[in-house]
């Protein structure tokens, strides 16, 4: 029987990446959230009871990033969401590198498929 030893170093690296990613996203959310409250806190709540969809400045990478330059609080929050979303994606890329390093081509392929599923969707809907 074949037992696959998992790479201890890579486990530590993936674990740390997940933690750092989530914490970074949370810090961005706290800072930009406070900024958002200072600027808009006294305004009445937008109508969340009906779905209106977000403007294009909050649904595409170019829209989100151009808003950052103009210090739009909502765009900075959306950056936090993006960092949060990038966290699991980063760990896929780390696994890909690890499997390639071990010359485990079967798992390089498997990991690449998962990565491509996510990537193709980002392009398909106009995020990138």
């Amino acid at each position, binding site marked *: 029987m074949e037992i696959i030893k998992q790479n201890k170093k890579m486990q530590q690296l993936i674990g740390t990446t997940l933690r750092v990613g989530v914490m970074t996203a949370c810090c961005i959310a706290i800072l930009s959230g406070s900024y*958002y409250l200072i600027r808009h*806190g006294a305004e009445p709540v937008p109508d*969340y009871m009906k779905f209106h969809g*977000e403007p294009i400045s*909050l649904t595409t990478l170019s829209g989100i990033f151009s808003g950052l330059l103009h210090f739009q609080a909502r765009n900075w929050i959306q950056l936090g969401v993006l960092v949060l979303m990038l966290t699991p994606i980063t760990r896929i890329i780390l696994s890909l590198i690890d499997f390639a390093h071990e010359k*485990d081509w079967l798992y390089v392929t498997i990991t690449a498929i*998962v990565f491509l599923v*996510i990537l193709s969707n980002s392009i398909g809907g106009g995020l990138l």
Partner: protein
Amino acid sequence: MTILTFTIILIISAFLAGFLGSLTGLGGGVIVIPILTLCLHVDFHYAIGAALVASIATSSGSASAYVKEGITNIRLGMFLEIATTIGAVGGAIIALWMPTNIIAVIFGAVLVFTALMQQRRTTDHVNVVGSNMARKLKLYGTYPTKDGEKSYQLTNVFGGFSVMLSAGVLSGLLGIGSGALKVLAMDAAMKVPFKVSTTTSNFMIGVTAVASAVVYLQRGYIDPGIAFPIMIGVLGGSLFGAKLLKRLNVKVLRKIFVFAILLVAINMIYNGIMGKF
């Protein structure tokens, strides 16, 4: 109501959701949706967007520790993520045209299923003879126990993969991690040790949720004003819950919680059928 008041209510609710989610092992998303839709009357689509944010945050946060301890089977997770991500993208696309009331009824049904799964007894799989397919895919592994590293084999790769596909669809449709179904796929179908099943399920939730979050973000379902209090609250709550979990006997709490979930589920299904969303 001002944005400030709304934000404070959201942070407190999300904290509670994260706290209960980590004590009961349900994750953050499942509790965020009923709070937002039933209590705060937020549109279901925004609630799903918020639940995805909560799912990614809580799963990545807790997966971090399990991966370092070496309990998580990374190969198994990676392989099954093919099923969950494809399913999740499919589910997210279905959600875009499916009437909200039907989504609410499905959500209620998933809650009932989750509550029942919590009552399920876990049995140790002994002398599992692994299948050829599992061996070829190098899915066998080891995990740390009190008596040192223990090795295990697993079987029924195809069955597990198909259940994961539906877990992915539900996750994309509802914005939740659908951990209960993921554990069922590994523990019951593939005979993976329970501890490895739960941690690997947790590990997979982040990637699965991102696959559908990409679709939701582009369609404008993720609102910054809801996302940031949810992210902060859920993370704070789940960290606090994890700290308390070591000192608390959660058996009684889980029993009470099962009833609470069933009540919420009935409420969801009733409101969905009456067309109130």
